[in-house]
């Protein structure tokens, strides 16, 4: 057992370290050695890093101490019904993987019951648990599992940096199940994939570790929705990690939609690696949770890459929502665009930190970052900071951040046409949010979200 003495200023991690021992023992039999090794590495990184504190530059505004104090319990409790899935399904014709408190629910999902499926285009969708259990049936392992396991073994934990981020380390240590998408070269999925994570903790807070792995082979294409939903006012901690590996010319649209319960803690990291000519279109829509932190990191590791990060965060009451993006331009001739909008009401806090590294090699980089914030109340605050580190000379990097109220001129124009003050305000706030949501190319998701925004702001 790994023990660290709780020195002053550090948050005690003994609870988590002890829980790991129990978890490790209980999963020893069902887990292959490579997976056990990944978990072990995760916990030792966690033990070394400890929980971040406000003294940590990366966590200046986001206090995670309350998370560390939650009783640490991971538990499966099935409160899901087909109706509930449908209510959160966008009416979308898709492959759907449903997880409840971190465990895969094949009966409520929309892929082959065994939990792995090869699509007609040749893409493989499944889960870590299903891949392990079907592969274990020695007499007849399915093709999907035969394909998925080596991919998992090769890619799980490869991009995510457990050595740099305590929550990535913790997720890696406790990785139990995972959504896995493997696209062999040229495979272009026509239907999107909807990964739906429900967390429910009616009695006591629980902790879940959602994990997603997307491996997109050369020239492959897919659209993935990663969706977090909770039950009203239930307290829990959802600690997610997503790894996206885009090989040459691959195109991935990734839409993360965070609608956790208003009492939940949500900390998530998306780590993308892009090879030459690949396109990543990422959307991070953050609506729920008491505290939400999103790390969205990309390495642009080949030329001719496009990377677009869109984000919309809405916060009210005492919510805190924090986005940290970090893009590393490692090679020449790549474009990155970041568009983040925030709407903060009541006493809510928004944080946006956008890092862009341009390596000496990365000439002709074009990086553009915009973060605009709308404060709807005097007590709402935003901390926004671009962080550019540029080591090449022939580059174009622009950034702009604004924090403000609605434009009086626009409000007056609407009123002068007969639209009441309240409606004019709502219309403008909705427009500000829709500017980001409109960039989602999955029609059903975009339309549902826009309707949700309409209900929120214009009804």
């Amino acid at each position, binding site marked *: 057992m790994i023990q660290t003495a709780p020195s002053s200023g550090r948050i005690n991690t003994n609870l988590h370290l002890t829980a790991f021992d129990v978890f490790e023992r209980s999963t020893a039999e069902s887990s292959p050695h490579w997976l056990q090794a990944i978990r072990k590495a995760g916990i030792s990184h966690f033990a070394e890093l400890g929980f971040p504190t406000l003294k940590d530059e990366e966590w200046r505004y986001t206090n995670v101490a309350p998370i560390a104090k939650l009783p640490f319990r991971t538990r499966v409790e099935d409160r899901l019904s087909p109706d509930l899935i449908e209510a959160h399904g966008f009416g979308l014709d898709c492959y759907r993987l449903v997880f409840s408190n971190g465990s895969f629910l094949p009966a409520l999902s929309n892929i082959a019951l065994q939990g792995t499926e090869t699509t007609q285009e040749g893409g493989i969708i499944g889960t870590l648990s299903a891949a392990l259990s079907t592969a274990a049936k020695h007499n007849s392992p399915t093709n999907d599992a035969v394909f998925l396991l080596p991919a998992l073994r090769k890619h799980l934990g490869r991009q995510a940096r457990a050595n740099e981020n305590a929550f990535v380390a913790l997720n890696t240590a406790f990785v139990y199940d995972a959504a896995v998408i493997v696209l062999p070269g040229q495979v272009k999925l026509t239907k999107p994939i909807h990964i739906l994570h429900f967390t429910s903790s009616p009695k006591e807070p629980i902790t879940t570790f959602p994990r997603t792995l997307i491996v997109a082979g050369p020239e492959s294409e897919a659209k993935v929705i990663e969706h977090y939903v909770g039950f009203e006012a239930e307290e829990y901690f959802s600690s997610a990690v997503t790894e996206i590996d885009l090989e040459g010319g691959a195109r991935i649209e990734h839409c993360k939609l965070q609608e956790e319960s208003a009492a939940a803690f949500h900390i998530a990291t998306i780590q993308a690696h892009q090879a030459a000519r690949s396109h990543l279109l990422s959307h991070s829509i953050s609506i729920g949770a008491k505290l939400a932190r999103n790390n969205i990191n990309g390495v642009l590791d080949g030329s001719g890459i496009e990377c677009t990060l869109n984000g919309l965060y809405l916060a009210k009451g005492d919510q805190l929502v924090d986005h940290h993006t970090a893009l590393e331009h490692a090679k020449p001739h790549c474009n990155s665009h970041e568009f983040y909008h925030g709407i903060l009401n009541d006493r809510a806090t928004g944080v946006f930190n956008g890092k862009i590294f341009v390596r000496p090699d990365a000439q002709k980089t074009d990086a553009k970052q915009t973060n605009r914030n709308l404060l709807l109340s005097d007590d709402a605050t935003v901390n926004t900071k671009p962080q550019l580190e540029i080591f090449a000379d022939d580059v174009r990097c622009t950034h702009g951040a604004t924090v403000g109220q609605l434009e009086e001129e626009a409000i007056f124009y609407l*009123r002068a*046409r*007969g*639209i009441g003050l309240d409606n*004019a305000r709502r219309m*403008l706030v909705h427009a500000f949010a*829709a*500017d980001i949501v409109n960039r989602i190319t999955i029609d059903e998701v975009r339309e549902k979200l826009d309707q949700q925004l309409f209900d929120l702001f214009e009804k």
Partner: protein
Amino acid sequence: MLEIRNLHAEIEGKKILKGIDLTINAGEVHAIMGPNGTGKSTLAQVLVGREEYAITEGQILFQGKDLLELDPEERAREGVFLAFQYPVEIPGVNSTYFLKAALNEVRKHKGLTELDAMEFLILIKEKMKILELDESLLKRPVNEGFSGGEKKRNEIFQMAVLEPKLAILDETDSGLDIDALRIVASGVNKLKRPDNAQLLITHYQRLLNYIVPDFVHVLYNGRIIKSGDKSLALELEERGYDWLIEEQSALTR
């Protein structure tokens, strides 16, 4: 319809309107002319309820109601419309959606039923023809990326849809080429009815070749220093404003 009595307005302590008297009856077209910076736009903004201006004296009655008591949206619903000199761009607010919301507010106020999407579409198709406006503009956010001329035409298009009782056009002619000016002017003329009125603000007489006013007023230094019929506009075109200003200062000296 509109009665302005001894109106004084100031902004940031600066006196801009210094005693305006003006009466406009239904069926009339009035023009207000004057050099730049004399308070023409201020008068227009005060009429539609811009809150930055303080009214220090005077009264405005619109169809017998005290206009100064009403919010901007209430004035619009009562039938006061301003075609802005500088229409603002409103990113993200779709033109059609916006105009339907505006029209339905006006209709509600009049006790009429609200139009549904289909009825509204039929209406705007018809009105668009008057302004020879491209349909694609209405799919875009309000004024966003519109050229100067398109913005002005869009203002008059909104006027055509909302059918105000009193339409105030603030320098609608500026920035229009001659063809666009003809289209806009003929649109405005088509919208003229015995039960509505128009107030044109301009500092060129050019517009008045196409929209013939019943009355012309010269605004200078916050006051109407001369009123006349359309021949006054022609005289101003020929002789400029200086003679009038001198005449005026001779009077007040």
